[in-house]
């Protein structure tokens, strides 16, 4: 017991071996030992958030922006339970996050001790995997195993619950090298026979369409995806998580599909003859309802790293397990072999290009003096440089951003997909900025969402993390209000926000920069002021309170049955 490394020394040693440079946390009694170990640590920066949910989201945003696992920590009991939303958010979007939670000493477990929570039990269904470490001897093995699980196969959050004595005891046990699990061996190499069959189908296609999900981004396969699309003459639509998998200013890009997707993308889903779906799990927000009418006439190909996603929501003709990167690379190889039998896709390609440019010239983003979400985001498109990262909150703000923001590179559009967590965007922006300090980082926010996490202004000020929050301030929980307007007889129950804070003064009270914007002509100047200020900034865009994000698939509608298409030229 008195020999070897202290538990907390083991934690920090492992963190360094995993190349962790930053972590986000909030202390408490049982976590003092680990905080103490990090006190004079210079290689691992420990960023103090103001609410544990912020730590989990920041770690998540860090992982999305960097491609490396994000790390967060919280104390036992309420600290651990405050992480929950963030952990599920990461797991649902397959983002690698490792969370350390303190626990009461092993002897006290089960006694309902002060700030004891069954973190292991609570986090089991919301993480990819979790551990309760009962002895310091197992600590290094567990941490290395946790990073491996979080960051391989289909990624996700992993929790390590650390009792106080496990942090403080010493152990001579230290696991070197890779941790192996008898039951965990994610298969990432695609089956060549199936690849060949799929390649054959793709070259036979006259109207090929690719639907790219977040898996393409997670696998860093965007460059090859573009090559594949260009080679096939395939249109590329993406899910919300897939935004940025292809440059959205590319003529083959059709934008996002689904409930708030683009009409053109949704229509093309049901017009294509071969649909190649990569790294996407067919969420209901992507497919609409009536799954039998999703691409009914197309040969459906589904490639995913998680075999349990294949034939789960939609039955497909050609399922294939594999890492998107390897799948796409190998498909290109096979397709080249079938060059002589490849069908001409020129007519289809022209149609795709046409739909692409129709959206580019969208009437709704023509300046008319009014401060609308469309104009704000169009101005943002022109203002931000090519390395900028945009995060979003949840609601209309998110869907305006998803619909109108032109994402040019992967890992530069960060949004809560599966869980749809209000309050994600701001802490995620903080995490993204820590990962990419030289990139402009902007959170496109809603007033309701930002209020849930605005205390993180203190984090961003103290730690010098200058992100910009642009609030599309409609004084409403806008997306819910939109549903009430369209489907619930305009009964705005619980969605009017009443007295909102003065967001400019709120920012200023933290020492941050704040500016109110009321005219379209002031958007650009405000953005410039915020980014030039060099500190965390809040822009309060006063938009009309009852504006809607349209078109949309109404609840129960099929993918190509959008409402509110009045302004779409290609209806």
């Amino acid at each position, binding site marked *: 017991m008195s020999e070897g490394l202290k538990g907390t020394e083991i934690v920090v040693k492992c963190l360094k071996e995993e190349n962790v440079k930053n972590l986000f946390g909030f202390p408490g009694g049982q976590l003092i030992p680990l905080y103490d170990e990090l006190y004079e640590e210079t290689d691992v920066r420990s960023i103090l958030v103001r609410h544990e949910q912020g730590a989990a989201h920041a770690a998540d945003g860090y992982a999305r922006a960097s491609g490396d696992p994000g790390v967060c920590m919280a104390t036992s009991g309420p600290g651990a339970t405050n992480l929950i939303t963030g952990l599920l958010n990461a797991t649902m979007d397959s983002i690698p996050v490792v969370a350390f939670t303190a626990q009461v000493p092993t002897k006290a477990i089960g006694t309902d001790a002060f700030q004891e929570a069954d973190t*292991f*039990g609570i986090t*089991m269904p919301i993480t990819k995997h979790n551990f*309760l470490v009962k002895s310091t001897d197992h600590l290094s093995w567990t941490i290395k195993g946790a990073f491996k699980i979080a960051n391989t196969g289909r990624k996700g959050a992993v929790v390590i619950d650390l009792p106080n004595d496990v942090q403080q005891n010493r152990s001579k046990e230290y696991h070197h090298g890779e941790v192996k*699990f*008898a*039951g965990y061996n994610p298969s990432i190499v695609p089956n060549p026979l199936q690849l060949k069959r799929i390649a054959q189908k793709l070259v036979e296609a006259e109207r090929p369409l690719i639907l790219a999900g977040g898996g393409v981004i997670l696998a860093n396969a965007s460059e090859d995806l573009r090559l594949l699309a260009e080679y096939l003459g395939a249109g590329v639509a993406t899910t919300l998580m897939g935004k940025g998998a292809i440059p959205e200013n590319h003529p083959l890009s059709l934008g996002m599909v689904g409930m708030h997707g683009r009409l053109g993308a949704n229509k093309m889903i049901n017009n294509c003859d071969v649909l190649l779906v990569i790294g996407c799990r067919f969420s209901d927000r992507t497919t609409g309802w009536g799954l039998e009418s999703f691409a009914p006439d197309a040969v459906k190909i589904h490639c995913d790293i998680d*075999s*349990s996603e294949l*034939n789960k929501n939609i039955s497909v003709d050609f399922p294939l397990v594999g890492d998107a990167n390897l799948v796409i690379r190998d498909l290109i190889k096979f397709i080249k072999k079938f060059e002589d039998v490849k069908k001409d896709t020129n007519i289809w390609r022209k149609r795709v290009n046409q739909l692409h440019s129709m959206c580019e010239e969208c009437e709704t983003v023509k300046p008319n003096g009014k401060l609308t979400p469309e104009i704000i985001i169009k101005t943002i498109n022109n203002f931000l440089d090519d390395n900028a990262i945009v995060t979003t909150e949840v609601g209309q703000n998110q869907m305006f951003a998803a619909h109108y923001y032109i994402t040019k590179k992967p890992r530069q559009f960060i949004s809560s997909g599966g869980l749809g967590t209000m309050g994600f965007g701001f802490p995620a922006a903080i995490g993204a900025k820590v990962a990419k300090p030289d990139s402009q980082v902007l959170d496109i926010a809603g007033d309701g969402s930002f209020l849930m996490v605005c205390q993180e202004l203190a984090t961003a000020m103290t730690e010098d993390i200058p992100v910009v929050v642009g609030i599309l301030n409609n004084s409403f929980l806008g997306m819910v209000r939109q549903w009430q307007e369209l489907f619930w007889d305009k009964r705005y129950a619980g969605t009017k926000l009443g007295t909102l804070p003065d967001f400019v003064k709120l920012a200023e009270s933290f020492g941050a920069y704040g500016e109110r914007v009321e005219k379209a002509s002031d958007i650009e100047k405000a953005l410039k002021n915020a980014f030039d200020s060099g500190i965390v900034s809040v822009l309060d865009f006063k938009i009309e309170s009852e504006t809607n994000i349209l078109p949309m698939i109404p609840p129960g509608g099929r993918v190509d049955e959008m409402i509110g298409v009045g302004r779409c030229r290609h209806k």
Partner: protein
Amino acid sequence: MSTQIISVLVEDEAGSLTRMSGMFSRRGINIHSLTVSPSEKEGMSRMTIVTTGDEREIEKIEKQLNKLIEVVKVNILDKNTSVVRDLCLLKVYADKENRAEVLEIANAFKSNIVDISIRTITLEITADPLDIDRFVETMKNFGIKELFRTGVTAISRDIEKKSGG
């Protein structure tokens, strides 16, 4: 919808049973029975799960089970080529008047008498679960005081391949 027997080899880790049963409840799948016991491999247990579902549903369950880190191997047992057993302990009312009849039926089902009191007989039977169902149904006529079943455990038969010739 048919009954399916799934045999799972899992690493002995704290929580692996919860993780497994949690997966079933989270995905809305009913478990008819679940047994856990040591396996021939050190540090690993075998869980036998009985559930219902068509081929597609069972395939989904299999994939979800395989995703769990502690799960090493999943086998869907074919009832035609497996030995399936359940053990039942049953306490049935048997007084002077019907005792002989109870014993006769117990005998016919090849169950063993494990305890006798003035008003009851306790029987033990190890058999295919369907046989036990029939046994229990029959005994209901006399009044069952207590009933325990262990749940299904099963093993596949080694089918000898005929050598060519």
